[in-house]
């Protein structure tokens, strides 16, 4: 796809997002993350929902974390914004509203236009498996941020 060559060809945003939508629906990847449009009627393809399945052998195991992703107008040139809906205790995640600190996630801090929602979700999941996060005590399952 032209969008995936990354050789300087700038793919229009909507194309990119539609592509990602398809990937989300097809379950591309290892099945540990999922994403899709929050509102199917959203023509701007801005608000997305994501799902991360807690990696095994961590405190997050067997938990399903719901996230909200926002792809701004500059996407994919500009990074996207991620915030957890399900409460989580993790470095880089604001404990009061679940917003993922862009500076804490390397892919968000150093965003490249080849990055995608999948990449971000997979990166967040990878961080769950990091030593510093994998044992953090978690709030009871099923709690969501009030925002």
């Amino acid at each position: 796809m032209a969008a995936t060559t990354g050789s300087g060809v700038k793919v229009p945003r909507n194309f990119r997002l539609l592509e990602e939508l398809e990937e989300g629906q097809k379950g591309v990847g290892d099945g540990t993350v999922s994403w899709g449009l929050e509102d199917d009627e959203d023509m701007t393809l801005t608000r997305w929902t994501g799902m991360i399945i807690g990696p095994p052998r961590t405190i997050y195991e067997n938990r399903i974390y719901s996230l909200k992703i926002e792809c701004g107008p500059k996407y994919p040139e500009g990074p996207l914004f991620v915030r957890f809906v399900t409460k989580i205790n993790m470095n880089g995640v604001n404990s009061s509203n679940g917003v993922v600190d862009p500076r804490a996630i390397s892919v968000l801090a150093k965003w490249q236009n080849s990055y995608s929602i999948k990449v971000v979700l997979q990166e967040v999941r990878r961080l769950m498996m990091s030593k510093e996060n994998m044992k953090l005590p978690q709030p009871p399952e099923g709690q969501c941020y009030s925002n």
Partner: protein
Amino acid sequence: MAENGESSGPPRPSRGPAAAQGPASAPAEPKIIKVTVKTPKEKEEFAVPENSSVQQFKEAISKRFKSQTDQLVLIFAGKILKDQDTLIQHGIHDGLTVHLVIKSQNRPQGQSAQPSNAAGTNTTSASTPRSNSTSISTNSNPFGLGSLGGLAGLSSLGLSSTNFSELQNQMQQQLLSSPEMMIQIMENPFVQSMLSNPDLMRQLIMANPQMQQLIQRNPEISHLLNNPDIMRQTLEIARNPAMMQEMMRNQDLALSNLESIPGGYNALRRMYTDIQEPMLNAAQEQFGGNPFASVGSSSTSGEGTQPSRTENRDPLPNPWAPPPATQSSATTSTTTSSGSGSGSSSSSATGSTVAAANYVASIFSTPGMQSLLQQITENPQLIQNMLSAPYMRSMMQSLSQNPDLAAQMMLNSPVFTANPQLQEQMRPQLPAFLQQMQNPDTLSAMSNPRAMQALMQIQQGLQTLATEAPGLIPSFTPGVGVGVLGTAIGPVGPVTPIGPIGPIVPFTPIGPIGPIGPTGPAGPGSTGSGGPPGPTVSSSTPSETTSPTSESGPNQQFIQQMVQALAGASPPQLPNPEVRFQQQLEQLNAMGFLNREANLQALIATGGDINAAIERLLGSQPS
């Protein structure tokens, strides 16, 4: 792709018409779609009717994955599929992948109704609230403990007993061992709040059996206690050391003014005599005749109590209670404060010393002095402690600078008035005495318990001679000295009985007594060797009783440390410690403590008290 994009974009029921038009496989039935179900470990393909619900989908899945439907969590496009939803609702079409998470049994799931899951879930969820409640109860416990903070706090102070009297003793011991602690206690707002309640203080005082005895003997004390103004004032002063000093200074000034009035001083003196004598007698049992208790006039007997202690709050004997006595005692206290404060002008110090001298002299005239003398005899350390006090030194300095003042002090003493001969003897000796007092060697000699004891022995010998062969005794000096000593030691000594008033009691009396005290031992010395200055203050006739006083080491130490603490409050005007403690250092050296620096430090810390310094050097605390 575009088609895919369109079809996978906004979930228009694009397939709807197609499905409705010609479902080849399912006549009049929704199209079967193939949905891939993907778990982190497996992937299975399911063919389900398009319009099936998630619940139905899960049932199909549960068979394949051998799990309960309640354990299944389906995720599509970042959303969890709820049982009542349909696949179409989520836009799940043919060929799309749904993610599956199988919840293990030990996961607390509110949804799982399966027995196994429920058991695991209930256990988990039950444990969670339990832990929460535990934490909550833990949080509430500190508050509960906080309410007991009073007693618990006391135990934290090292007092294991909540028994009032035991607490009192323990507090006293605590204070004895740590002057800093006393200061801290004084500054403790809790202590201060207690002190500010006159009724409470009065009750505490009344509760003290010794105080009760005192009150029986001396109804004036009870008057004092019952006077709320006096109590309040006393408490105020006890509570606020700074205020105490200030009051002392004010009283000192007032007293000095009073002295300037012709005959006024005598009036004061008489008042002291009237009040202090009964007070002294009353306090004898407890304090061994603390003359300064009487000087403190009003609730001097209360000196036994330590208001600064959190528990036993007997108010300070209000030295300022009866106005005239107040002034006198205030002067006494002022002397102390001015000495210790060191900020006071020499005039105030002078006035205070004059007043102090007067008070001391008047005190000596009471029989209580005798017992004090006895105390002093037995506890020369007290004297030496007092001698070490900076305020004493300041007083002595002021005295030396004003020989006339000293002379006036002596002359105005009722004792001297009763004995003009003594006055004549004293007068010429005054300047020499004062200078000698300033001499560090003298101070060292006075600080030396053995020297003091020797002086006491000389005095006693002279007294015996006086009784046996009056003609042979040149003067009453020895008696004076003894009396002075007794006075000096007296108030300091009997701290134990009432308790932790120690810090306050010595506070007051030490001052005026101090400068006079050293003169006592100097007396016999002067007559004998001429080294120590002659006694400048007359004392009562040396008919001292040999009533043994129950001076305890801790009291001495306590007083000594209190003195040091008080002294420490003011910029010390001490001569070089090394010079001061020259003799003690030599003694320590002779005993085998070769570390001169350590010896010096210990001596400085104990104010020249060799025994205490030795204990310090040995690493043990005075009890």
